[in-house]
């Protein structure tokens, strides 16, 4: 947090000087406009979150009868208790599943992307650019478009409705390979790799002990992107999974939401469940943004 304020002060100081020569008035106007746009955007993004937070604290009857953007009787903990006990706590199972799919998936995807990106950046071999371009092409194919073909493939293998049906497709990140390549090329000097080789380190050891450290900020970025992508991935689990105990939290909440006409009371659980399901994302982001930001700043300096 402090770092981000620091950068901001630096930047404003930086822009102030030329502004003095050019004309303060324009700069003030444009800054006000920019500020206004940002405030509107912030409200636009935060209002639904605020609504979610407020709605989660309400009792079922207050939910429809009171102002949707302000608190009524505080029942957050009752709601949480109702949520985690409903159907023997299946919601907690869903959270654990999401953590498994997103955590393990993002970790392995980051590893594979780093290895591939590093290899493409640092080794010369035939077909290197073709390989890279094909991978880059993968960025353009939306995951949703691949879900149905994947389902048919997994059906052939008899692996639908298993953990693997969601985990395996999550292990590839073409964007991650792209970022790793760019970052490895810029931040891992050939001299260091040479030095490591002269010191007797093998290629794998060089990669894990030297390259990954230098690439760390990029790896954190890839991990974050992939974590969020898997956590929010809804379509693939929808198509692959039938067993309630394998659902990730997104699919579980969606299923509940479609049952509202049968069991209207379930709506309150969907609301409180949605709130709880975004907390891990926020925590992950806050915990990792320090590495991420310093990485971006370093990258910029180079």
């Amino acid at each position, binding site marked *: 947090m402090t770092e981000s304020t620091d950068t901001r002060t630096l930047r404003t100081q930086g822009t102030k000087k030329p502004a003095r020569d050019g004309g303060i008035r324009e700069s003030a106007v444009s800054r006000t406009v920019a500020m206004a746009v940002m405030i509107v955007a912030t409200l636009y993004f935060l209002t639904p979150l605020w609504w979610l937070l407020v709605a989660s604290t309400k009792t*079922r*009857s207050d*939910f*429809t*009868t009171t102002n*949707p953007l302000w608190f009524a009787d505080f029942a957050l903990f009752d709601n949480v208790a109702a949520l985690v006990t409903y*159907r023997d706590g299946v919601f907690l199972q869903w959270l654990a599943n999401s953590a498994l799919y997103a955590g393990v998936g993002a970790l392995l995807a980051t590893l*594979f992307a780093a290895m*591939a990106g590093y290899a493409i950046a640092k080794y010369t071999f035939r077909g290197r650019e073709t*390989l890279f371009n*094909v*991978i880059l*092409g*993968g960025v353009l194919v939306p995951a949703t*478009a*691949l879900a*149905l*073909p994947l*389902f*048919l*493939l997994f*059906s*052939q293998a*008899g692996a*639908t*409705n298993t953990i693997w049906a969601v985990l395996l497709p999550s292990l*590839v990140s*073409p964007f991650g*390979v792209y970022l790793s390549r760019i970052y490895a090329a810029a931040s891992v000097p050939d001299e260091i790799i040479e030095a490591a080789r002269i010191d007797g380190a093998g290629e794998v050891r060089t990669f894990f002990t030297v390259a990954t450290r230098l690439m760390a900020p990029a790896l954190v970025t890839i991990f974050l992107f992939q974590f969020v992508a898997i956590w929010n991935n809804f379509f693939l689990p*929808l*198509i692959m999974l*039938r*067993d*309630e105990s394998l659902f990730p939290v997104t699919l579980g909440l*969606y*299923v509940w*939401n*479609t*049952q*509202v*006409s*049968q*069991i*209207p*009371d*379930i*709506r309150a659980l969907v609301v409180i469940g949605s709130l709880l399901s975004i907390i891990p994302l926020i925590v992950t982001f806050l915990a990792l943004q320090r590495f991420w930001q310093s990485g971006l700043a370093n990258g910029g300096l180079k």
Partner: protein
Amino acid sequence: MAITRFARAGAVAAISALALTACATGGTDAPGASGDCAPSDGPVTLTFTSWLPGVEEAVAIWNDENPDIQVEVQTGPNGNGGTYQNFFNQLAAGNAPDLGQIEFDAMPNFRVQDGLENIAACEGILEAEDQFVGWTWSQVTFGEEDAVYAIPQDTGPMAMFYRADLFEAAGIAVPTTWEEYEAAAVQIREQGGYINNFSQSDINAFAGLVWQADGQWFSNDADGWTVDLTGAETTQVAEYWQGLIDNDLVAVYPPWTDEWNAAYNSSELWTWVSAVWGANTIASGAPDTAGNWAVAPMPQWEAGANAAGNWGGSTTAVLKGSDHPYEAAQFALWLNTDADALTAMNRTANIYPATIEGANLPVFGEGVEFYGGQNIYEVFAEAGANVNPDFTWGPTMTQVYNDVADGFSGAVSGNGTLLEALTAGQASTIAALKAASIPVKE
């Protein structure tokens, strides 16, 4: 990395081709050959996909009593929310569950895509007809000889929920005809309320109103399907509601939203013409109005008539390719006729059974506090018996619902009319049937 990418691209191309062929074969409507239906040797395990909350409880009763026929429950979102698409994917991949929940309005879709087993030859299935409310059986046989494609599970007979207290205080008689309903709407509007909300997105509710008026949207014979979204009865219903909308006599809140609930809770809306399961919707969405509601039969087009519509309801179908159709059929029949199973499903999912006997379950024999102690289920049982048995759904109802809903949401904001929306829906439905190679008469 590269190899998987290439392999995957190849697979995509191959499978897209496969999907196209699968669609193309969907048009052929093979006659329902009722072959044999013999029990399997040895113990079997059946898979059953249903989105009924808590259906596991009813299934557990079966599993205890039938150690050799174990049923595994799989779940997912409601049919149009993704489970139907999953069924079709699974049918294409050859790993469909043995049994699936399918709503009445989706049955023709599965039938024309050849996704259903004919279980008529299975023991006791044809004889079960008498146990079910008349109209439900024609929905699972499609009028074919020696054919049963599913067992009806639950229904949504329609009636009118109304605020007994407000009608009484205002001295307005509870309407029994649609003419009286409109007159009451005017009086209620003078009091600052609305008699009802016109739902722009519940096209199946509108279909229920057309159903009550004896209208027909679809019919089919050997030469193909006939689409008639703008028939005389439909036009009558559409123009009636268009009049109410034009004269600001009904509200037009998007249904199932907070503001819609709030409008009921704040006594702005006085009635809701809806299905039996709507009883819980009101109780949950308008808690402050507890005890003030009552239920009366739907208003009629002809004074003294007793026609009713239906909104919702589903079946348990045996999906094509099941290795154990005999056992699957036995389970489906048990699930939807056994008193304990029906009671369990009513408790966990509020279902209203499709059997005649189901209306006599103890749970339906009591007054309901939210409705001032009235035994509202008597009204619904009678409505269920008065539903026209000949209403036919089309094979592309999801598309029909979406297209007409687009037009309806325009109409409620003054952009076109309900009838124009139905006319557009008529054209797009014929186009959709043709695109799916389903024979259609124009």
